[in-house]
């Protein structure tokens, strides 16, 4: 086993899922550095969620390796995995009416019977406050709006205190303020040295947030690099199968769809 201090938090070495015509993910190589934010974009069904499920160690690759700090993820049990990576899944409904603080405290489940569990109460409270939920602490999570529920799950993920955080369309239910707050949270986590991977359809927003972008289509990686390197009309047009325009504004690429081909004049 390689030295944990020099191994990246997450590395995929030729990891694939399925094979031949049933391939859901082509063999993939990538390594993520500590303190970086990586955004995965691509059309629906392009394999973003499949890639994320390999990254989370929940799915065993058909071939190749998924390494977390140099250790093979499929060999870890649920608790060991949960001490290394956390996940904000797309599904945010909670089946029973638990309290906000109870849901956030589940983030500490994997740390039971470890020294850090002595700080559980403080860590949970800090996570709740970081998401502006102090007043919702004792509310039932089933009574909250979609945006509030996302913040509860984000607080749970923060309370888990993992080196690697995977956010699967965490912005889907968030309004403009919510997304702004999410971005501040993600940036702060990366500044603490944590590695963040996020899947999103909000390309322009995550382009300004992330250090690295991965463009997927057809179960494989089309492009992988800095936002300004991968956000080109050619790469995005090929991945999404539609014409896009990319302009530069103060050093940032901005992606736009062309205006509808047939549109009447503005009334009045």
């Amino acid at each position: 086993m390689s030295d944990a201090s020099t191994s990246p938090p997450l590395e995929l070495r030729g990891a694939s899922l399925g094979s031949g015509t049933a391939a859901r993910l082509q063999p993939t190589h990538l390594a993520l550095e500590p303190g970086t934010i990586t955004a995965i974009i691509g059309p629906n069904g392009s394999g973003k969620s499949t890639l994320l499920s390999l990254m989370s160690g929940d799915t065993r690759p058909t071939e190749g390796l998924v390494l977390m700090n140099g250790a093979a993820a499929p060999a870890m049990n649920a608790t060991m995995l949960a001490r290394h990576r956390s996940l904000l899944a797309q599904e945010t409904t909670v089946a029973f009416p638990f309290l906000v603080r109870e849901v956030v405290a589940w983030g500490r489940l994997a740390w039971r019977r470890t020294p850090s569990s002595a700080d559980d109460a403080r860590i949970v409270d800090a996570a709740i406050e970081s998401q502006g939920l102090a007043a919702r602490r004792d509310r039932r999570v089933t009574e909250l709006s979609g945006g509030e529920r996302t913040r509860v799950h984000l607080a749970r993920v923060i309370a888990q205190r993992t080196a690697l955080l995977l956010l699967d369309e965490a912005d889907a239910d968030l309004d403009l303020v919510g997304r702004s707050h999410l971005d501040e949270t993600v940036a702060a986590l990366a500044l603490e040295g944590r590695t963040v991977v996020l899947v999103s359809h909000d390309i322009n927003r995550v382009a300004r947030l992330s250090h690295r972008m991965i463009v997927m289509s057809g179960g494989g990686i089309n492009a992988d690099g800095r936002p300004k390197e991968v956000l080109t009309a050619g790469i995005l047009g090929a991945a999404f199968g539609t014409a896009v325009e990319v302009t530069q504004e103060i050093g940032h690429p901005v992606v736009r769809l062309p205006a509808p081909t047939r549109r009447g004049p503005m009334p009045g």
Partner: protein
Amino acid sequence: MTLRWPWVTAVLALTLILAAAAALLIGVAATSPEVVWNIRAPRIAMAVIVGAGLAVAGALMQGSLGNPLADPALVGVSGGAALGTVAAVALGGAFNTGFASLAACLGAASAVVVVVGVSIRDSRPEVVTLLLAGVAVTAFTTAALAVLVSMSDVAGARSVTFWTTGSLALATWVGVLSVAPFAVIGLALAATTPRSLDALSLGDRAAQAVGVDVAGVRYRALSAVVLLVAAGVATVGIIAFVGLLVPHAVRALVGPQHGRLLVLSALAGALLVLAADTLARVVANPVEIPIGAVTALIGAPAFFVLLRRTRARQGGWS
């Protein structure tokens, strides 16, 4: 607003003791030591064991499948147990024996494998599919049971109605002793699950992400369901809705945490079945109402309310 659960536990336990004492003294026959010890006492013990088992089984099914509408009888597990028992007797076994109980377990386990297997898609159990699979399994087990009962004379006093609506009238100490070990093992297994079941409310993927061994806890919970349901059904038939009503009432009182939910469901389930059985044997004197009819008359309307609430919470299903 939730109540302090230690108080609720104390009140329920006390009520259960009082109800058991009252049930010993109430009845159609004159109260004699013989009647109390050989007829009423085993019946009360059976009601307590079966009621606790059914209610805990319901809470375990709901928690392990994230499905507020799950109940052992509604999803076909009780039907599988009844069919297993009758098949064992048709093959030459006897009621109230280990053989009959094991056959009941086999039947219940088969039903669990079928309905849960069908309802889990993309590693997520679907609420409605589970119930629909339960409808199909129940239809099959009821029909097969009717065939077996009408073709063989070994069923004795246990008619199709006995199996489908349940009765504690035939409870004996031998029967109690044949059920008790299964109930004890089932409850012990259930006691290993609460923390994991709490986090399983997140859904399979997120629960796994916080460190829950999803497959492991689901296996333990559903094995407990099989043990708790099967031995009871093998001796008293199918009593529906206890596993649905009791956990929901308990959640409304003390919240959804599974630790207290399982303890209080056991007490409240025992109390409900004991009360329903006492009612069933005295209210229409001299005939007995089937206990499963009593629980269904309360349970079916409650199920309707839960159905509407669950659908609203999940944003509808199509």
